[in-house]
């Protein structure tokens, strides 16, 4: 059964007897059962009749063939002769003509399309082994990346190589899973921005990330606006906003520090480091529930396989770059500590690697931190230096001091071996 709308469309063709037989039957059946359409048809019929009636008067009834033929002019053959030799008259095919007619239009369009295709397909993340530090294992939703010194933001693709100094940014609906050589997995939650400084160092500019750092002979460090985080093999979450950085540890050990203090966090610990250099610590009740969001991002198996084949896990011996000494000072008041180290072959050309000195008390609570610039070690002829300590209550009350030394450039292995640490009293 046709609709009234269809019947209305068919009406003119029906009256002009230009409807297919089957449609005509449907039309007639509809009109027989539909009063409004029947009225329309009647009206249409009358309008048509009026048109025929009025225009018929002007109709041509005579045949003027003989009149035309009686006075036929000569054919103008000059045109044919003139155009006969052109390429077009030799190829009168309609398609060919159309082709040339539209040539000025579609050639630029074609060029544009080619240009765009080339532009987008141009390999912009070529594999340069010396710069490649990782790969995108999963891209869930539209995320962007950019290269340093290059303002253009590109879409992140699965299996994309990550180079040093690449920046990644997720939007309100996207999450990313990155793998760095080591291996380290970095999961980025929505609205996060990070910079991959290299395989063992990332900067979290904003948002929330989850790190699963594989054990390796180098430290892994995470830099945020308010804190520096140094880790070995461990899993933890870092959330950064305008005011503070919150670090929650799921397993392993993480050292968090800011300008003035430091803390060592273990499973279930949480630290809140603000830009005003305050550090608060507490713990979460169920460490296994930390960063559930990150567990839901599954790596693409193909990407994982390519990554593992290209940047295999380092299975070297885990060499701890930190050197820890325990000093029992009893109840003495101390004013300084003396560090002595073994002379090395490279003393002369020692680039002057500095060290960070961390002192914690019996309960491993932080007491003091200090930075020892590299020049100190180069200038000191007798391979020892003294570091003055503040005369504060916590320090003086502590009975046992845990003294830890971590090289400044923690990606390098230790180049000095400290042989002796002594406390100096008043």
């Amino acid at each position, binding site marked *: 059964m046709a609709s009234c709308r269809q019947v209305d469309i068919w009406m003119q063709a029906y009256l002009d007897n230009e409807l297919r037989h089957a449609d005509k039957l449907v039309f007639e059946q509809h009109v027989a059962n539909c009063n409004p359409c029947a009225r329309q048809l009647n009206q249409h019929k009358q309008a048509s009749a009026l*048109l025929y009636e009025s225009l018929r008067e002007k109709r041509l009834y005579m045949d003027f063939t003989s009149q035309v033929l009686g006075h036929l002019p000569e054919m103008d053959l000059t045109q044919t002769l003139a155009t006969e030799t052109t390429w077009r008259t030799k190829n*009168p095919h309609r398609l060919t003509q159309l082709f040339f007619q539209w040539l000025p239009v579609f050639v630029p369009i074609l060029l544009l399309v080619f240009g765009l295709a080339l532009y987008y397909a141009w390999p912009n993340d070529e594999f340069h082994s010396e710069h490649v530090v990782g790969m995108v294992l999963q891209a869930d939703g539209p995320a962007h990346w950019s290269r340093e010194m290059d303002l253009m933001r590109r879409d992140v693709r699965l299996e994309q190589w990550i180079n040093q100094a690449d920046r990644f940014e997720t939007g309100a609906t996207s999450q990313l899973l990155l793998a760095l050589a080591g291996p380290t997995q970095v999961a980025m939650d929505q609205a996060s921005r990070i910079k991959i400084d290299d395989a063992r160092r990332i900067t979290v500019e904003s948002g929330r990330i989850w790190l699963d750092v594989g054990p390796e002979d180098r430290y892994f460090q995470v830099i945020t606006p308010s804190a520096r985080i140094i880790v070995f093999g461990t899993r933890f979450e870092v959330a950064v906003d305008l005011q503070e950085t919150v670090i929650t540890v799921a397993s392993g050990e993480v050292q968090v520090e800011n300008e003035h203090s430091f803390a060592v966090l273990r499973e279930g610990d949480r630290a809140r480091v603000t830009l005003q250099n305050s550090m608060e610590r507490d713990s979460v009740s169920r460490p296994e529930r930390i960063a559930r969001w990150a567990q839901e991002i599954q790596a693409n198996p193909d990407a994982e396989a390519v990554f593992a084949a290209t940047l295999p896990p380092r299975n070297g011996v885990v060499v701890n770059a930190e050197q820890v000494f325990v000093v029992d000072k009893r109840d003495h008041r101390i004013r300084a500590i003396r560090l002595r180290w073994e002379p090395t072959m490279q003393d002369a050309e020692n680039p002057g690697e500095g060290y960070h000195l961390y002192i914690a008390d019996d309960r491993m609570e932080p007491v003091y931190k200090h930075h020892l610039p590299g020049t100190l070690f180069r200038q000191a002829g007798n391979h020892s230096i003294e570091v003055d300590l503040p005369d504060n209550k916590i320090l003086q009350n502590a009975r046992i001091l845990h003294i830890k030394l971590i090289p400044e450039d923690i990606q390098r292995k230790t180049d000095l071996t400290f042989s002796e640490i002594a406390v100096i009293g008043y």
Partner: protein
Amino acid sequence: MHLETDKDLVLRCLDGDTDAYGVLVGRYQAAVYATAYYYAGRVGGAEDVAQEAFWAAYRSLPRLREPERFASWLKEVTTRTAANWLRRNAPRMRAETPLPHRIQVSIEDLRQGPTKQLETAERYEQVQLAIDTLPERYRLPVILRYMQELSYEEISLFTGESKEEIRGILQRAGRQLRSLLADLNETQGDAQWHRADK
């Protein structure tokens, strides 16, 4: 009966066979005449224009690049001829603009209502006005259909538009004309119905 195609006839003409042109004239004179009428013939001259158009087409037949599209090419020639004809005759036509109909009305006629003659003239006027309100593109197909009763196929061949386009054009034009002419029909008193409300 198998009709010779336009292409065959054109090729025969080009070989000097004037009878073949006679067949083409017979085939298209109605359309050419209606076109001439539409462009130039309101005040007479449609026949002259039509004949001139056929002569002009014959003269430039060698210039026709696609003989199978003779019909739509002929339409172009006709419109050009009509335009030239109008340019030549426009000053004279202005001078000859007919006076309004003068109709003698007797007392008897008045008693019976408007005369048949008046009705026809007025109706024709109305229909012309209605057609003039249609979009430009609709007008020639409407004239070809209602004046010469050409089939959709013939109209499409002549105007160069597809048959489906012609079907659509006539359907839309028909709908517009129906509403424009509905009032006229009603005043004629032979329609007791009203427009259906949708």
